[in-house]
């Protein structure tokens, strides 16, 4: 009875979140419809001997899985991968419940979640990053504002209210900043981007670490005029039309935000240098953190040491139950994941650059392979 109720709840949940995902990622939604019809046509042709794998979760990872699905069909014609963009929380919940084989999440599972569902693996698929963006009329886009995590935290805590506050002006000596109220914009929905941003805040501001802390959804400090938006698309839309705004935006939305007149901040890393997220600075940060990555690969890559390390990067995870429902399914999941993390397969630059991710560093491969080897029937 209890499982039945849970099943109903999950179905409702999935339907609801799918609705949101569809709205926040219009193009992706259309593309998803295309893939499913494509998959259906293929399954009609030979309905037997096909292993069906369901993927659901992170809307950030969803476009990547969409690229992978048809590509992997050519590698392994007997495996039919159906991706769904529903949200990281749904990905973790449905993978844990055994409803799907592959969950996708921007955030790794917490210790407590793992205690509730032992045997769940968190396997990195790619590396993503996040940038801080702002809209200040009169400050040209090429003048990237210098900001520190501590100053951003004070803005989001409501302690710094104007763009020409001395804390910000001191970091940007050459730029004339206007006396304009700052409008912080946060994600209202649960989001991997919120997870990254609040981890960065926690690492750089003591008060934040004590009060707000981090998670995919936090209780935001009350700041007069602050706005919430839903989805990265919503954040960009709202930030663009709000002079004085500051927001955190996933790297895949960088170009869209820049073309809408937003500025991109240079962030101070642990070594004290101000950096933009580029392939070099993201790779540098990832490289430094490999040594620290534990066997279960659950680790925050935020605020990495190293002179050239960009401070907000993360692993994008596939959430897998190590015990799969049958030998064929287990084998199919294993070979799919091994292909996905291989630089010749799913981690090819041509896939990654399309969705603005970075491939996994080669040295992480043995750790992930060891985890994938644990999958069994």
């Amino acid at each position: 009875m209890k499982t039945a109720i849970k099943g109903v709840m999950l179905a409702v949940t999935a339907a609801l979140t799918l609705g949101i995902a569809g709205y926040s990622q219009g193009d992706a939604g259309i593309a998803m419809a295309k893939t499913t019809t494509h998959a259906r046509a293929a399954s009609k042709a030979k309905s037997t001997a096909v292993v069906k794998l369901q993927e659901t979760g992170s809307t950030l990872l969803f476009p990547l899985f969409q690229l992978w699905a048809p590509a992997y069909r050519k590698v392994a014609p007997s495996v039919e991968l159906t991706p769904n963009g529903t949200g990281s929380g749904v990905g973790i919940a449905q993978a844990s419940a055994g409803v799907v084989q592959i969950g996708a999440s921007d955030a790794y599972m917490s210790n407590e979640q793992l205690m509730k569902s032992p045997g769940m693996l968190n396997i990195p698929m790619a590396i993503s990053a996040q940038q801080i963006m702002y809209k200040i009329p009169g400050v040209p886009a090429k003048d990237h504002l210098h900001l520190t995590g501590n100053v951003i935290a004070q803005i989001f805590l409501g302690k710094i209210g104007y763009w020409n506050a001395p804390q910000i002006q001191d970091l940007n000596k050459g730029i004339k900043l206007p006396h304009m109220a700052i409008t912080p914009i946060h994600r209202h929905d649960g989001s991997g981007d919120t997870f990254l941003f609040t981890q960065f805040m926690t690492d750089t501001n003591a008060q934040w670490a004590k009060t707000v802390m981090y998670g995919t959804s936090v209780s935001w400090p009350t700041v007069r005029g602050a706005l919430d938006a839903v989805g990265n698309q919503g954040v960009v839309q709202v930030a663009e039309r709000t002079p004085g705004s500051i927001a955190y935006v996933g790297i895949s939305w960088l170009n869209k935000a820049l073309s809408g007149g937003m500025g991109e901040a240079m962030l101070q890393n642990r070594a004290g240098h101000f950096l933009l997220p580029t392939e070099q600075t993201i790779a540098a940060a990832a490289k430094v953190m490999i040594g620290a990555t534990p066997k279960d690969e659950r680790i925050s890559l935020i605020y990495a040491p190293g002179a050239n390390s960009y401070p907000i990067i993360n692993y994008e995870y596939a959430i897998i139950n190590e015990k799969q429902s049958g030998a064929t399914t287990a084998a199919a999941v294993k070979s799919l994941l091994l292909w996905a993390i291989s630089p010749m397969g799913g981690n090819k630059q041509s896939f990654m650059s399309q969705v603005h991710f970075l491939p996994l560093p080669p040295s992480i491969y043995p750790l992930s392979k060891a985890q994938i080897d644990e999958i069994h029937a």
Partner: protein
Amino acid sequence: MRRSRLWGRLFYGVTGFSAAMPLLVLLVIGGVLFYDAYPAWRFQGFSFFTGIDWNMGNMYANGPMTQNGVQAAPGASFGILPFIVGTLGSSLIALLLGVPVAVLTAFALVYRVPSRVAAVLSPLIELLAGIPSVVYGLWALAVLAPFVEFQLGPWLATLGHVVPYLAGPVGTGLGMLTSGLVLGVMIVPIIAATTRDLLLQVPRLPMEGALALGMTPAECLRFIALPYIRRGLFGAIILGWGRALGETMAVLMISGNADNYTPPNLYSPISTMASTIATLLDSALTDFSGMAVHALALIAVTLLIITMLTNLFARLMMQLGSRDIGVEVS
């Protein structure tokens, strides 16, 4: 002979089942929701409705906290007063603006517009009800919000010293006023269509008599038509209100989604109950204690009860309205 009896029984069975379906569905949904919401009620108690602090707690903490015998993530606190205020506030603004427009539209359709034109306009109004709410949301984000920010808001704010709640700052145009305006547009079709049907029931004779006595069209509406349909109209308004209460997507896009405060003025960002459930569900699923999902279920129960009450009330009023045909003459 036998065969027809079998068919008869089958027919009874199928129709009986179909007739019971709505009730069964309602019972199942209600049952699941109540079952799922109960732990949150135990955890938070009545402060669920009066608290302003919504915090799902630290989901990456090691170990849950226990309160009133149930577990939640440390720091968790579920107060939904801001969501209740946002839901009621925006829907009441919608009624304030939508009802007069809808009633006058219906009046025009029935009495003022030539019947050929009305035959074209009536379906158009019903068509308005079919526009997906996400389209209303996009329109509001692109057109209405800037209008509120730069024109309507500043103008209303000048009345601030008369009605303090109207005082600025106007903000960005994303908030209660814009949400209410959009909801107002969205409920016009449903109220207008129902009112039109009610007005069609008003007998011609008193109306013509009133005109013959020299009443203006406005007086005809005020003294003949409105008293006649009063109760039914009330029901129609409540139906529209129910629509505004449950609307999710359009409000989600333009409400500004406030956290942890009740709106200090008319333009302030708000969150509604429906939009909160939709946006926070994904995160709630990562709560290892499961309490966040229970809390969302309790919001759903609250919303369900409010909408059911308004709907029942509306049905009752409609029934009374159609029975009450006699026009008072004194």
